[in-house]
């Protein structure tokens, strides 16, 4: 579903993403770990068409993200670290607007169903977003993924700043989406959450994918050690 092939992004002399090749299939969750500036967000920005790759290619659902920027976005839902919606609109209205401009005409009942499925409490449906916590806004983001019948979910530090309960709930929602066959690429610093939700885990440093694991094959302490080793040693390669 998501494939990058030698994807590279340079800003002048600085290489933010360096020959990155990865793939995320349907029903897989790939968590990209790495320090700030490792290239995780730049990768997501390229998949979203926000940045043009310097070289290499990326495809979503078989379509090149540069050549078919708008078409690929039909399959994508993106939830940034701090999902900001329109504060003066209610949860249903925000969901209706964003799914509507994405080409999905849905009834209020259907939208309510998605908000319910995303775990948002009933009394919040008609409340303005300005009263929502970050966790509640993330749930509206998940409801948007459901409303768009999304194939690819791109998450950039989605659990950063969430309390453990909200973070856990978010993890459960990801599992639901995974079971529906959604391909999830999540950039995170949270090793614990990555181990909890991911099917695959990659560690990035200086724009390169240094190590990659199947989540089941590695314990949390082993993951932590691998992460620290990668951060401490420049040239440790998988």
């Amino acid at each position, binding site marked *: 579903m998501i494939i990058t092939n030698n994807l590279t992004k340079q800003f002048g002399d600085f290489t933010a993403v360096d020959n990155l090749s990865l793939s995320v299939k349907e029903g897989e969750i790939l968590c990209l770990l790495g320090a700030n500036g490792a290239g995780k967000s730049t990768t997501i920005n390229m998949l979203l068409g926000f940045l043009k790759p310097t070289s290499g290619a990326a495809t979503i659902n078989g379509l090149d993200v540069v050549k078919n920027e708008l078409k690929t976005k039909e399959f994508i*839902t993106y939830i940034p670290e*701090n999902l900001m919606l329109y*504060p*003066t609109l209610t949860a249903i209205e925000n969901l209706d607007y*964003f799914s509507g401009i994405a080409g999905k005409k849905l009834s209020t009942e259907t939208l309510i169903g998605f908000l319910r499925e995303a775990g948002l409490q009933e009394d919040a449906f008609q409340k303005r977003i300005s009263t929502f916590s970050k966790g509640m806004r993330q749930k509206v983001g998940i409801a948007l993924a459901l409303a768009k019948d999304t194939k690819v979910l791109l998450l950039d530090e989605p659990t950063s700043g969430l309390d453990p309960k909200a973070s856990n709930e978010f993890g459960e929602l990801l599992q639901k989406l995974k079971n529906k066959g959604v391909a999830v690429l999540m950039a995170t610093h949270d090793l614990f959450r990555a181990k909890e939700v991911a099917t695959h885990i990659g560690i990035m440093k200086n724009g390169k994918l240094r190590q990659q694991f199947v989540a089941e094959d590695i314990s949390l302490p082993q993951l932590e050690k691998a992460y620290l080793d990668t951060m401490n040693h420049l040239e440790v390669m998988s």
Partner: protein
Amino acid sequence: MFRYNFIYELKLLLRSRWIQLLSILLLLLFGFSTINGKSKVVKREVDISVAKQEVEETDKAMLKLLDSVEQGLEVSVPSWTIPSSPMAVGNYHPRVAAMDPQPMAFISTGQADLFTHYIKPTVSGDDFALNFTEMTSPVQLLFGSFDLAFVIVYLLPLLIIAFTYNVLSSEKEQGSLRLLASQPISLRKWVFQKLMLRFFWLSLLVTLSLVVVILVAGVQPLQWSGILILLGLALCYMLFWFALAFLVNIFVDSSAKNAVSLIMLWVVFVLLMPSVLNQVGNTLYPIPSRTLMINEMREHKAEATKRQDEILDNFLRDHPEYAINDSTQSRNFYHRYMASQKVVKEELKPIVDAYETQLQKQQSWAQKLQWISPTIVVQESLSQLAGTSTADYGNYRKQVMAFAGQWRAYLTTFLYNNTPFSQKDYLSLPQFNYQAAKSNSVFTSMLVLLLIAILLIGFGFAVQGKTQQKGILSN
């Protein structure tokens, strides 16, 4: 996308309370300016009506005197004012040459605060010395008149700037831009739709406010077509500013920079360009001094006075038609004076023509270059619609000059035929009827404004904006 933008743009506007504030502000601005404009028109109408009433009253007195004179009764007025003398009628009972306000005069003061609206040309007066200017308050001249044209030309763009400067940048600043840009939509198209929707809502507000204000202020049925043209012109001008806002939104990034850029454009189009155009016009086609012209005229008159007898002889030789029925061949001061006036006028013609030609050159230069600033185009069009433009006053001046000539010619015939003016001649006295000039340039202005707006929007779509070049979404 359009349907959702349409619905939610209105919801967002209504909930931001901005639209309520804007509606109140628009109503207040339109209301105050319309009342202000109306009151000036009413004052003008009253002034003209008072002048006409005065003439009616002096005419009644004149007819009474004529009646007494014709019955051979003695009258107790100075001999030179007895109306059986055509010169007494021509000098002491002039007609009012009034420029009646047009139905839409209330929308733009235009040149109305500089020029007078009625003149009483006398038979022995100089056409060149007819004073068309009016004393006005220097404070008002400095700030201009607070009329509908002022609100539309100067203030409406500022409201549009406040309404549009941050359509895209606010999305970035409040954090919703990345979510928005991750949807399968073109951001440029999205910005365009949002701006067009704001244009639609603002147009609706402007239309409603105008209609409410005009209904409250009172409107004649004939004025509705003018009001429709006014509305069309205002909407085209608004579209121009929305097109500029579109460009700024897609080429500049932060709200602060957008606001400053749009204010700069406002300064350039609204303040700088008209002023530069005026200055350059004055430099290229300097108008000869009117004072020098009047001095020269006085010199010619003084010279002509010295040879009045000779002039009169020449004049009567050249114009036998004036004295065709004169059996008395009596000649007095006025015979000589009127003949010399005619000579002076002919001698001064080249000087007056030079003055007028230079003035026309300057005006035609400004007319041609008005298209560089839509603000000038709209101001000029609104003044034309109101009948208060420079061209309208030029037209009025010409008509007054022609009438003064007609008045003089009518009474001069009595003078040279040595025929007394009688009651039966009263009804055939020339009357002044102002004919307003008809112009279709308002429609051309609308078309040009539309074209400029379309070109600006087309440019915005054709050229890659900063949004993509600098990766506004990647931060």
